[in-house]
């Protein structure tokens, strides 16, 4: 099986420039610097590389939104604010293969004619940020970054910027505000970041994994990358599996690999002979699947067809014996905690949902509470500046739609049948 990213992740020294170079690293950058810029962008378009941060927007298309004129400097921002519950792949790239990211940054900046790049890393990732910074320093010393990279006239400055604890900053305009020293409030659009982004300049925000794919695409060509995946969704992707499986972790798999094989083959199936109850496939914000819905390819369109999303590749495995009301309550606490507070429906709605779920779970639910949740969801969905409200609504609705009996059971029995425990 062809791997794009993780081939050498087992090698402890791969995170150092010397080893990375010995294993072929920075060859793609050399190649890219000899290519016309448009050709690099064209290869990325051909690759059908979809953003790996969650929204799945085609990377090449996004780059095309930059204004044509070069009168204003352009900025590349790397979204390393990995925070979607169930997702932990960008952390792996940053710790095991930081030079993949840096090489990707250098190629992308060269192709987009951006001379400034900020790597926005979530604040908790102190050690990860240190590793990335160390790699940047190495790369700068070796001439891959900084003034006139590899003897060309191309300058590139890369700065690591640490977040400070806010899930919302994974949303690209919130991230930009945070980078600018503001509260992480998403921006009203238009204008879009490609025209008015960080510091008022044209800005492209890409996820770590997305950019780390770029060197491979340059080396092997867009078509080859596309062929690894499915139609309109190329390459491999890093699938994160968490929950009580035998081998939790990150698996690099061709886009389109079946969810069943991800859980049962790659992750080894559930522990202690437990049966599968449900799966959240793409991070906590994506609609939950029942155990009988996992014969689906892990790609954006197949997931969409069955009413869920590939998201950021965060597969959370929920075993039989788990209280789905409690599970949803935990998730709603998260969204209520992380709502930035800007838009009324999300600010008030997330907290309301969390409170109603809390009382249902504790046996104090009232008749009509389930309908109430669904109605509040209707009043939140699609009504806000950014998708955080939607991200809270999608699990809430899908948990109720697919596991309604558990919610009704809590109301009927006035207690949690699972004993208020996981």
């Amino acid at each position, binding site marked *: 099986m062809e791997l794009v990213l993780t081939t050498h992740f087992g090698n402890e020294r791969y995170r150092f420039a010397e080893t990375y170079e010995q294993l072929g690293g920075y060859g793609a950058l050399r190649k890219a610097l000899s290519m016309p810029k448009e050709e690099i962008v064209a290869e990325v378009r051909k690759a059908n590389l979809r953003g790996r941060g969650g929204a799945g927007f085609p990377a090449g298309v996004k780059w095309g939104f930059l204004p044509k004129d070069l009168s204003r400097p352009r900025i590349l921002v790397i979204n390393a604010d990995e925070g979607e519950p169930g997702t932990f792949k960008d952390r792996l790239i940053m710790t095991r293969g930081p030079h993949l990211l840096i090489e990707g940054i250098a190629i992308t900046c060269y192709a987009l004619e951006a001379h400034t790049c900020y790597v926005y890393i979530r604040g908790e990732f102190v050690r990860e940020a240190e590793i990335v910074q160390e790699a940047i320093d190495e790369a700068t010393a070796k001439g891959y970054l900084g003034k006139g990279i590899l003897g060309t006239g191309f300058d590139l400055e890369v700065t690591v910027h640490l977040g400070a604890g806010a899930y919302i900053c994974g949303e690209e305009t919130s991230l930009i505000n945070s980078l600018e020293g503001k509260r992480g409030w998403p921006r009203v659009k238009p204008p879009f970041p490609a025209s008015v982004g960080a510091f008022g300049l044209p800005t492209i925000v890409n996820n770590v994994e997305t950019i780390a794919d770029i060197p491979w695409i340059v080396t092997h060509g867009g078509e080859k990358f596309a062929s690894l995946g499915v139609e309109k969704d190329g390459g491999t992707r890093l699938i994160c599996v968490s929950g009580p499986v035998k081998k939790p972790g990150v698996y690099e798999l061709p886009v389109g690999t079946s969810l069943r094989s991800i859980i049962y083959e790659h992750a080894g199936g559930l522990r202690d002979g437990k049966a599968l109850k449900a799966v959240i496939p793409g991070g906590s914000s994506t609609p939950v699947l029942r155990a009988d819905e996992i014969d689906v390819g892990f790609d954006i369109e197949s997931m969409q067809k069955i009413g869920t999303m590939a998201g950021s590749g965060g597969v959370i495995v929920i075993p039989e014996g788990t209280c789905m009301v409690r599970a949803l309550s935990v998730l709603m606490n998260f969204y*209520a905690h992380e709502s*930035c507070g800007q*838009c*009324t429906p999300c*600010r*008030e709605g*997330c907290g309301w949902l969390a409170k109603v779920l809390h009382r249902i779970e504790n046996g104090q639910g009232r008749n009509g509470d389930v309908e109430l949740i669904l109605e*509040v969801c*209707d009043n939140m969905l699609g009504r806000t500046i950014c998708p955080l409200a939607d991200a809270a609504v999608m699990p809430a609705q899908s948990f109720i739609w697919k596991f309604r009996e558990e919610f009704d059971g809590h109301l009927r029995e006035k207690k949690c049948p699972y004993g208020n425990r996981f």
Partner: protein
Amino acid sequence: MPNFTLNGISVDVPEGTTVLQAAKTVGIEIPHYCYHPNLSIAGNCRMCLVEVEKFPKLQIACNTVVTEGMVVKSDTEKVRQAVTGVLELMLINHPVDCPICDQAGECGLQIYYMKYGLHKSRFAFEDKVHKKKVQDIGGQIVLDAERCILCSRCIRFLQEVTGTSELEFFRRGDHSEISIFPGRPLDNQYTGNLADICPVGALTSKDFRFKCRVWFLRGTRSICPGCANGCNVEAHFKEDIVYRLKPRRNDDVNRTWMCDPGRLEYKKANEARLLTPVVRENGGLKAEAWEAALSFAAFRLWETVEAHGAASVAVIASPAFSNEELYLARKLAEEVLRTPNVGFSPRSSGNGLSDDFLIKADKNPNTRGAQLLGISEEKFDDIVRKIEGGEVKALLVFGNELADFPGERTAELLSRVPFVAQVGTNEGAVSLAAHAVLPSASFVERGGTFTNHAGRVQRFWMGFPPRGNARGGIEILVGLANRLGAGWTFAGEASVFRAIARSEAPFAGMSYESLGELGQIAGGKG
């Protein structure tokens, strides 16, 4: 000029107009809290959701720029449900303490609840998030964080208008609240605007708090008399007591703002008013009927002219009076008394406060008007010298003070004049010395025009008839002039303004109709 369709109506709008602005121009209300015409777009309240053809999701009207051929609907069931839903969410953590809220009656939540809400409360009271109430945050403002709907208007105002940024959002999610940093209260001259732009009862005016329920108030369009800027205001009153001034939008003068000192100018209409004509004779004061007081004053002026010649009489006009009153005062001096001694008393320094925004050092509303009507400030100094030299035997003074003289100086000067008649609104150094006090109407009790520092002639309207026994300045002047044989037929400020427009070059071609609500720049030299 893009053309679009709103609720089936075809509308042409200038390039760059938003759906919300366009709707206003055709009288369609799109509910909103965070949008404010003179602040940046926040887009966070989510009340102005509308259906836009080709967009699957509802869009916010405040940030949707009209494009050619766009089809927008704000009157569908989908929109109504969305607005009701947002309103319900807005109220779940709101204390709903309307009986003890000063905003009651002009609260955006109350208004929209009646129009778009009327839902039952489905949120348990015990679950509400509680925040700090009744905080004095400085300036003219009290903050109740629980009532705040976090629309960010106040924060944007302090960032974009005053640049002082004293208020910020603290925390996040449903624990977000606006606050000052401890020990750093509001520190600017425009804090009162925060109460105006707050759509709910979170920021209320310390001065107005619990003085009167707003539904008892009536309003009139007016001009702030506090300085030469001429901020357009609305004066709110109950019976003959004024309770507050609120800015009225005029983007060429004050946008939608006014300063804190100006906001308190209304007090002069209530306090220490001269409300009945008084005559001082043989050392004693006596309240008189108007006829008697006017006749007395007219007689003494006539007598003085007869005895000492016209040059022994002087008229000190005031730039706190309207163009109409100043015009008649000049006319009285020049054509009836035939004295060369007419000047205006400048109150140029005031409290000295000025800035590069709305606050002017000239604390008179109509200095420019007096100048354009040919009444000179230099003449005032000349008259003062003549008083000191004992040449002035009779004096007609407009206003409550002489320039910015201390009270003792005014008393000393006026004691040298055998007869002083005053036309004024408030007790002060002049009324203490005058032999005839002719009480005149406050700015809310009469109509007229002021000319601001930039030469903009702006109307103000009568809210209620003069308090007590006071009278409008025009009526007083006509009464005096006609007792001196002038035969004037002016009736009301409009007729005087017509005369001004006919005879005074800077005002040529103007009329009350052409001035409208927002005024016009006077012609002539700068």
